[in-house]
């Protein structure tokens, strides 16, 4: 039995591990996906009004961006620990932490995207009798979409990575398996869970890229919007 051998030998790559723990791996992956998905979705819902407020009242922009930057600077382990007394040991600790991280990226990118909408386009829409709401949803948001999607991709990929640290409170998805594997020195478990994590991050990124292509057909056939690329580059640091 070559399969059992690799478990006994504690090999890094072990097909038998994947076969015998398929259920455990699936459960962990599902937990990982829902924690990430829920967090980014809540982050997006909160980021829009914040970005709009920051845009409407410019004096609010400084404090809003400053506050989210401060949040982004706090390391994830500290963030979850600080939220622990608020929520107790629960998934809410991890979700709240991830929401706060994604806010930073999303508010910034939404704001940058809206700022980059050409004034001519706004004027034209106003001239055609667009009200403020129709202007926002019909003209400004679609034109800001490449920057917003760039932010959403960064936020999602970061969230996939940061969810693993949630293992400290037992809600880390695949991080739980990495944490267990670390304590029992189970190499196959650590490597398999880590690999699935990376695959999840890449899959989510490609999925969002596909969604962006579908939603912004006018950008197809040329390079991705320059503004989006720049934000992507400058945002620089992955949250840890």
């Amino acid at each position: 039995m070559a399969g059992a051998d690799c478990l006994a030998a504690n090999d890094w790559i072990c097909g038998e591990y994947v076969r015998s723990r398929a259920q455990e791996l699936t459960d962990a992956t599902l937990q990982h996906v829902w924690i990430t998905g829920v967090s980014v979705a809540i982050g997006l819902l909160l980021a829009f009004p914040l970005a709009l407020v920051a845009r409407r009242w410019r004096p609010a922009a400084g404090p809003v961006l400053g506050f989210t930057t401060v949040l982004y600077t706090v390391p994830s382990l500290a963030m979850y620990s600080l939220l622990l007394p608020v929520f107790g040991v629960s998934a809410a600790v991890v979700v709240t932490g991830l929401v706060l991280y994604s806010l930073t990226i999303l508010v910034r990118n939404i704001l940058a995207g809206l700022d980059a909408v050409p004034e001519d386009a706004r004027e034209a829409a106003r001239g055609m009798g667009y009200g403020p709401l129709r202007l926002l949803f019909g003209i400004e948001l679609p034109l800001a979409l490449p920057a917003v999607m760039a932010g959403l991709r960064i936020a999602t990929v970061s969230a996939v990575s940061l969810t693993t640290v949630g293992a400290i409170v037992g809600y880390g998805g695949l991080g739980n398996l990495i944490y267990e594997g670390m304590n029992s020195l189970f190499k196959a478990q650590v490597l398999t869970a880590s690999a699935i994590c990376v695959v999840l991050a890449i899959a989510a990124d490609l999925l969002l890229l596909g969604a962006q292509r579908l939603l912004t057909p006018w950008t197809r056939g040329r390079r991705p919007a320059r503004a989006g690329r720049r934000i992507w580059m400058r945002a620089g640091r992955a949250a840890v």
Partner: protein
Amino acid sequence: MGAVTGAWTWLTTGANWAGTDGVWHRLGEHLYLTVVCLAISCAIALPVGLLLGHLGRGGALAVNVSNAGRAVPTFAVLVLLVLSPLGRYGQWPTIIALVLFAVPPVLTNAYVGMREVDRDVVESARGMGMTGGQLLLRVELPLAFPLIMTGVRTAAVQVVATATLAALPGGGGLGRLITAGFNRYDTAQVVAGALLVAVLALLVEGAFAVASRFADPSRRRRGAVRRSVNSRGTPRRWVTE
């Protein structure tokens, strides 16, 4: 509120600051790791980034290295390195992981900073007969300085944050206060440790922000321009143009 007062009591108890598991020792470990890893990362990434930016080559590498770094969970890398044969060599797995995650921001920002130097300025410097080396050191480097420093600051904050996680697989640093608190179900210690880590990260960020402002070689000449950019109400490093 109980957690806050608990953390305060923990922080104001002298015994928690002394000894091998005390705050001072852990803070020392954390700072040591940060300084060593930041120095190694800069020594690797700055020359490569500056040279690639100067030559205008390898842009895809310089930028993608950052994006790839985001997809790989830091925690996973730390654990993988500790379980690997390298795990036998004390602090080395931690140092390697920290350097791996600190290199991308330095590299990317150095590259982008060099590439974004006004092409007209570069052309006129060439027209004046400057050699490649002179151009790099006397024109491009000073103009790219703010962005290069942004990269170094980003890396510093990254190292502080990653070093915290290194406590999970048993490395040193302030993260150990948090993990020890979790092991003992001592919420006060968990919160106190987390506060210390957060304050350290913010102090490092702030110190680098101040340092890069004062060390900027073109600060005096460009002061007026800088202020007008800042009046948009956004921190300078995030300004897209």
